């Protein structure tokens, strides 16, 4: 059965580590839904959050193949109750008349306005991926100019 899984992968912060991980996925035909990566508190290490799609056998292979990469130090498949967050920047709107109504929607989601121009607004929002998707859907009616999502970053609960 195909499902989505969230992996938390600790890697050495070497040049080329991203391409080693991404190359492994593409070469073996694993599906990456999203991938984000940045340094940890130790500048020699980075943590990647990778959302993958596949069955349990594929998940098992992904874990083991990742662990064969010399730069990969730890692979965790995060449990479902882990804290998953995503961040979005989105610019939408076509006219001044729509502004009030867009701000109303943003307030419902507690999104922040980060840029204002004569005919559009830019919002930022952090939350669970589902919430981000709903926000995007609601803004569609005003015309989305551009958006960027970070993909999920996640940590297991203690």
């Amino acid at each position, binding site marked *: 059965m195909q499902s989505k899984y969230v992996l938390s992968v600790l890697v050495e912060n070497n040049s*080329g580590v991203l*391409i*080693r991980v991404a*190359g492994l996925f593409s*070469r073996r035909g694993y599906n990456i839904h999203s991938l984000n990566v940045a340094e940890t508190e130790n500048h020699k290490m980075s943590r990647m959050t990778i959302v993958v799609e596949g069955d349990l*056998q594929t998940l*098992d*292979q992904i874990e*083991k*193949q990742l*662990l*064969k*990469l*010399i*730069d990969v130090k730890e692979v965790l498949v995060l449990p479902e109750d882990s804290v998953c967050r995503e961040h979005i920047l989105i610019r939408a709107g076509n006219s001044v008349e729509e502004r009030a109504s867009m701000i109303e929607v943003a307030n419902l989601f507690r999104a922040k306005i980060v840029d204002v121009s004569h005919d559009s607004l830019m919002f930022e929002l952090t939350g669970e991926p589902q919430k981000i998707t709903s926000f995007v859907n609601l803004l569609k009616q005003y015309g989305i100019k551009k958006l960027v999502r970070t993909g999920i970053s996640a940590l297991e609960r203690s």
Partner: protein
Amino acid sequence: MKKLTGAEILVECLLEQGVDTVFGYPGGAVLHIYDALYEYADRINHYLTAHEQGAAHAADGYARSSGKTGVVIATSGPGATNLVTGIATAYMDSVPMVAITGNVALSLLGLDSFQEVDITGITMPITKHNFIVKSVDDLADTVRDAFRIANEGRKGPVLIDIPKDITMTETVFKAAVKKDAESHINIEQDDDIAKALEIIKEAERPFIYTGGGVIASGASEQIRAFAQLMDAPVASSLMGQGGYDNTLPNYIGMLGMHGTKTSSLAIGECDLFVAIGTRFSDRVIGNASTFARNARIIHIDIDPAEVNKNIEVYHKVVGDIAQVLDKINSSLPQQSHENWLDKIKEWKSEFPLVQIEEHDEFITPQYVIETLDELLGERAIITTEVGQHQMWAAQFYNFRSPRSFITSGGLGTMGYGLGASLGAQVARPDRQVVNIAGDGSFHMNCNELVTASKYNIPIIELIFNNNVLGMVRQWQRLFYSKRFSHTTLDRPTDYVKLAEAFGIKAYVIEKKSQVKTVLEKAIKSKSPVLIDCRIDKDINVLPMVPAGKSVEDIILEIED
């Protein structure tokens, strides 16, 4: 403290790792490294090949025949890309190798400079790991890491790319600090072994399948003891040849695409299938859904990622084969499977491997290889190219000890064998290396004859010359209505003249009665020899399991 250049540090680190032989080809980006090799010529033998690919295969053959790490050096750009096939070959067959490439100076990297290529990018999917060294202070530890990684767990190639200025910069060289090997108790493995023992004891018709991991782990004795305790037949993959003595009575030959009928029948009927040091290649399993359908499968391997990759198994033990088998053997009571072994024996006598001699002077590869076996036996190391001759070598030579059969199993690299034979002969001067080739493969890298000649490396290049690309032709015969598209070579090459031009003695075999005499002459020679052995173009490799078919659907003959 005395300072050394990067190039000198590199060579000091090679010595530290016990390296005394390297293969390579000089060039602009490795000038400093070659300058250091000049200085250390009394401690490191460098073999110059005709082409970097040959050097990579030689380093690979050196590693496979000796168990040591093969080392190859090439310059930047085309020097580095010429190694790629050799590195990929080593990667697919888990051969420990360290490839060292030069690159342009740090300040020129990324500018499309002359002879610049991103070799770490190119080799990422075909190495266990690779490095580009950006500071001379990192060089020594990088070399040490490379050798450790190449030999740790499942072995494989590692590449170190060194920009030219790093090799000329001086720094203080500190000798390696000896670390004690970490020992740890593996509870999971002990539990898995205990469960494996229970499963083994329940079996009535067990089957042992050995792969290249047995050789890499040095577990031949353990396998022998295990098979005896198990009282089971043993089949080997192509890569496993020699891991289990082929002359022992319970050995039933290869399994898979060109395995024996006995192996195929036994795979179908066994109730326990123990796979040791192997990765269930598609060339072995054919159709995964019907493979060993009546059996529980136990998989013992050092690489956890191989478990459940191609075949779902009933039970696994992850670890070094020799260590795992030692533990199993010490707790396994003697098993007895008399009826099962009787059945195996019947199959063996009913389905022997036989090639038909169409007339008195007809040369079958079987006869040539068996004669070679009779003359050389355990003294030989057989290397091969890729194709029909490779399968015949695997089928008809009796490999009695590990590291006596060297072949490109995973990547299937035509042009591998000649280079590999040079490396093997250099590593093992006590053995007679014979490269069994086809005329197709021979033409790919025949330039390396000059390397054999120049260094007087006394290999025998035995070419089964049928004027066709036999294996592809065989598939065209079977699956493409005999439309022999571009597989008929009919090249005008005069092998004797070609060999002589390179300074090598050569013989032609045209009839069966010449086989033994020529082989004897070649073996007596203390210098490299080429043999042009002419065979019929329509001899097939049989038995055969068509790709993707169940091993039980094995074909024993092909109608014309």
